[in-house]
C-alpha cells in the first residue's frame, strides 16, 4: 500500500510544499509523521461565501470579528498574566498540570518542579507502547504524550524536596513567586516544613493551592496505598456519583457490553479541578492586588469540582429521594437532546424549545412524512417539559433514528443546518482534526517544538481574544532542561555549583 501525502507546509518552512510517499510494509511505517491537515482549510474568501448565506451584514460582522481576534494574530498581542510567577510542584495528576497550563497559556511564567527522577506522568503511554512516546533531541529520553501535551509553556526544573538542602533551595524560591501549586498527599509538605503554614511566613503574598482528589482533610481524605501508590483519577469521578450517572442503562445494552455505569475516558475530574483552581488562584490574586496585599491557602479537589458540574443530581435526591440513573446518549432533561445511531456512526441533534422542536420535525418529515403524524401531532409531545418523560424520549428517538439510519452524518448535519438546528456528528479524533471548521479556526494546530519536533495539539480555547489571547509557545520539555536557566535566574547558582548539587542528588 502506498499513501501519498501532499502539502507538508507544517513540516518545514511556511511555503514549502513537498510530496512524499510512505510505503507501508511494516507496522513501524505507520508511526511515521502524518501530514496535517490532509486537505487544506478553507481560505478566508471561501469562508466569506458561507457567511454570505446570512446576508451582507453577517459577512461584515464575521470578517470584523476575525480581524480583531483571529487566532493568527495571537503573537502580535501582549499576555494577560505577564509577570506572574507560578511554581507547579505537582506530579502524577492532570489537575495541577491543567491548572498551570491555563496560567501558562495566558502568560504566567510557570516552573514545573519535578523530582530528579521526573514526574511519573512522563512515563505513561497508552497500553505501555513506547513507540507512542517521543524522544527529545537533546537528552534522548522518551516522554509520554499525555505529559508533553500538558507541559505547554512550562519550564522543567528538577529538585529533590526529600533532601533538606533541596527544601532550602525551594524556600529560597518562595519570596520570588506569586503562586505555588502542589498536589502531594495531605500534610506531606507541611511535615517537610514547606507547607502553606511555613511558606506563608517567608512570603505572606504567596497564593498556595493544593489540588487533590478527595481532600487533604476530612474522613475520606486522599490516601496512598501501603506501598505509597497515589490515588489518581477516576477516583474523583467515582466519589461524586459522576460514574454512577454516566453510561447506558442495562435496558439498552447488556452489562459488560456498555450497559454499565461508565467512567469518562478523560481524567475529567482532574480537568474540572484544575480549571477551578485557576479560577480561584486568579480571584485570590485579584483580591491580593486590590485589597489585602496578602495571599491565601486554596484547596481544590477533583471529586468536589466535578460534583459542581453534576448540576442538580444530589439536590434532586434531597428533593424526593431520586437517585439519578444513567440514560446513555439520551438526556432525561431535554428533548431532543441526544445522539442516536445513523448510517455511518452517531448523529447528535438538539432542539428543546418549541421553535426548534417543530423545526426538527419539519426537517425530518421532508424525507420521512410519518414523523409529522407520529411526533409533531402527538398531544403528549406538545408541551416542552412533558417531552422529557421517559416514554416521550423513547418515542422521539426511535422515530428520529428511523430517519437517521438512512443517511450519513454529514448529510444529516447539512440537512439540519439548513433548518438552523444545533446538530453535529459524533466524531473520532482524526475527524476532529480534519473538520472543516476546526482546521480553519485552528482548534487543533501544529507547533514545531524545539525538543520534540512537530506536535499536533488542541490550541487554547482562550486564544481568540481582542487584547490578550492565550497561546502555546512550546509543548514538551525534557526533564530538568531548564535547571541552568532557572537556578541562575532565581538563586544565582552557576553551572559548576549546579553540578555539585546534582552529584549530591539535590537536583
Amino acid at each position: 500500500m502506498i499513501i501519498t501525502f501532499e502539502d507538508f507546509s507544517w513540516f518545514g518552512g511556511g511555503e514549502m510544499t513537498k510530496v512524499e510517499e510512505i510505503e507501508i510494509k511494516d507496522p513501524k511505517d505507520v508511526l511515521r509523521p502524518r501530514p496535517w491537515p490532509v486537505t487544506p482549510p478553507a481560505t478566508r474568501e471561501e469562508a466569506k461565501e458561507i457567511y454570505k448565506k446570512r446576508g451582507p451584514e453577517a459577512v461584515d460582522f464575521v470578517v470584523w470579528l476575525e480581524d480583531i481576534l483571529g487566532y493568527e494574530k495571537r503573537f502580535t498581542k501582549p499576555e494577560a498574566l505577564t509577570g506572574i510567577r507560578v511554581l507547579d510542584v505537582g506530579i502524577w495528576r492532570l489537575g495541577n498540570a491543567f491548572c498551570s497550563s491555563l496560567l501558562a497559556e495566558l502568560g504566567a511564567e510557570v516552573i514545573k518542579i519535578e523530582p530528579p527522577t521526573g514526574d511519573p506522568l512522563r512515563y505513561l503511554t497508552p497500553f505501555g507502547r513506547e513507540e507512542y512516546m517521543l524522544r527529545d533531541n537533546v537528552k534522548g529520553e522518551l516522554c509520554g504524550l499525555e505529559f508533553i501535551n500538558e507541559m505547554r509553556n512550562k519550564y522543567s526544573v528538577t529538585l529533590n524536596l526529600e533532601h533538606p538542602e533541596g527544601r532550602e533551595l525551594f524556600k529560597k524560591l518562595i519570596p520570588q513567586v506569586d503562586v505555588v501549586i502542589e498536589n502531594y498527599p495531605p500534610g506531606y509538605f507541611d511535615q517537610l516544613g514547606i507547607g502553606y503554614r511555613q511558606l506563608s511566613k517567608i512570603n505572606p503574598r504567596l497564593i498556595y493551592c493544593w489540588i487533590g482528589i478527595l481532600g487533604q482533610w476530612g474522613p475520606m481524605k486522599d490516601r496512598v496505598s501501603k506501598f505509597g501508590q497515589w490515588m489518581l483519577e477516576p477516583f474523583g469521578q467515582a466519589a461524586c456519583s459522576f460514574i454512577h450517572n454516566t453510561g447506558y442503562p442495562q435496558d439498552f445494552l447488556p452489562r459488560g457490553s456498555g450497559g454499565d455505569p461508565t467512567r469518562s475516558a478523560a481524567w475529567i475530574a482532574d480537568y474540572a479541578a484544575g480549571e477551578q483552581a485557576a479560577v480561584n488562584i486568579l480571584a485570590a490574586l485579584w483580591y491580593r492586588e486590590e485589597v489585602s496585599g496578602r495571599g491565601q491557602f486554596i484547596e481544590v479537589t477533583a471529586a468536589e469540582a466535578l460534583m459542581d458540574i453534576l448540576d442538580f443530581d444530589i439536590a434532586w435526591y434531597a428533593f424526593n429521594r431520586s437517585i439519578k440513573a444513567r440514560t446513555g446518549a439520551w438526556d432525561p432533561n431535554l428533548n431532543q437532546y441526544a445522539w442516536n445511531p445513523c448510517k455511518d456512526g452517531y448523529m447528535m441533534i438538539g432542539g428543546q424549545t418549541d421553535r426548534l422542536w417543530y423545526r426538527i420535525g419539519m426537517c425530518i418529515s421532508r424525507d420521512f412524512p410519518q414523523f409529522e403524524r407520529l411526533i409533531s401531532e402527538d398531544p403528549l409531545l406538545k408541551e416542552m417539559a412533558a417531552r422529557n418523560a421517559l416514554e416521550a424520549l423513547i418515542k422521539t428517538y426511535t422515530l428520529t433514528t428511523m430517519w437517521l439510519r438512512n443517511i450519513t452524518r454529514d448529510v444529516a448535519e447539512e440537512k439540519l443546518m439548513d433548518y438552523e438546528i444545533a446538530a453535529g456528528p459524533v466524531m473520532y479524533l482524526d475527524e476532529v482534526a480534519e473538520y472543516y471548521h476546526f482546521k480553519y479556526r485552528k482548534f487543533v494546530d501544529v507547533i514545531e517544538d524545539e525538543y520534540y519536533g512537530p506536535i499536533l495539539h488542541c490550541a487554547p480555547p482562550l486564544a481568540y481574544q481582542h487584547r490578550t489571547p492565550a497561546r502555546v509557545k512550546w509543548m514538551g520539555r525534557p526533564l530538568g532542561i531548564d535547571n541552568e536557566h532557572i537556578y541562575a535566574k532565581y538563586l544565582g547558582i552557576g553551572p559548576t555549583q549546579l553540578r555539585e548539587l546534582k552529584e549530591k542528588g539535590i537536583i
Partner: protein
Amino acid sequence: MGVMDLTEIIWCKHCNTVNYLDPYTFWNWKGKVKCAGCDRVYYVHIIQGFYYEGPKEMPPGEPYDIMPLYADKPLEGYESYKPGTPGRTRPYLCLPREIYLGKADKVKFSIRGRPVRGWAPQPPSSGLAGSQGFKWDIEKLSPDVWKEYQVKLRKGEVREW
C-alpha cells in the same frame, strides 16, 4: 402483510398499535417481539437499524423474546402503553426511584422535613413588573403547609440532614 415495513417500529395493523423499538436495544437484534396492543408476535432480524428479515407475523401462541418499551395508537387518539404496563410493554429498570411519574412530583417538604416550594399552583405575584422580594411567608401564603410543618416539628420529623 399485517405490518408496515418500517424498521425501529412495528406498526401492527391488527390492532393499529405502533410498537417503538428503541434504537439502542434493537440496532442489531434478532428475535420475536410481542405487540403491545394484541397478542401477535413478530419475528424480526435487524442489522444496523435495517430489517434483514421480518417483521414476520408468527403463528398465534408463539413464545416471544421481548416486548417494546413503549407503544401507542396514533390513529385512536394516541392512546398509549407506558413502559412497564403488564403484558404489554417491558419495564424500564434503570429508573431513579421505584416510582415513575413522568410528570411533576409535587413536593411540599424536602427529605429532611422542611418546607420547599415544590408544588403548584402558588398564589399570584403582586410585585411590580414581576418583582419579588427575598421572602417566602409560608404561614401567610400556604397556611396548610405551615400547619403541617408545625406538626412535623412537634413529632421530631424535621432533621438536620
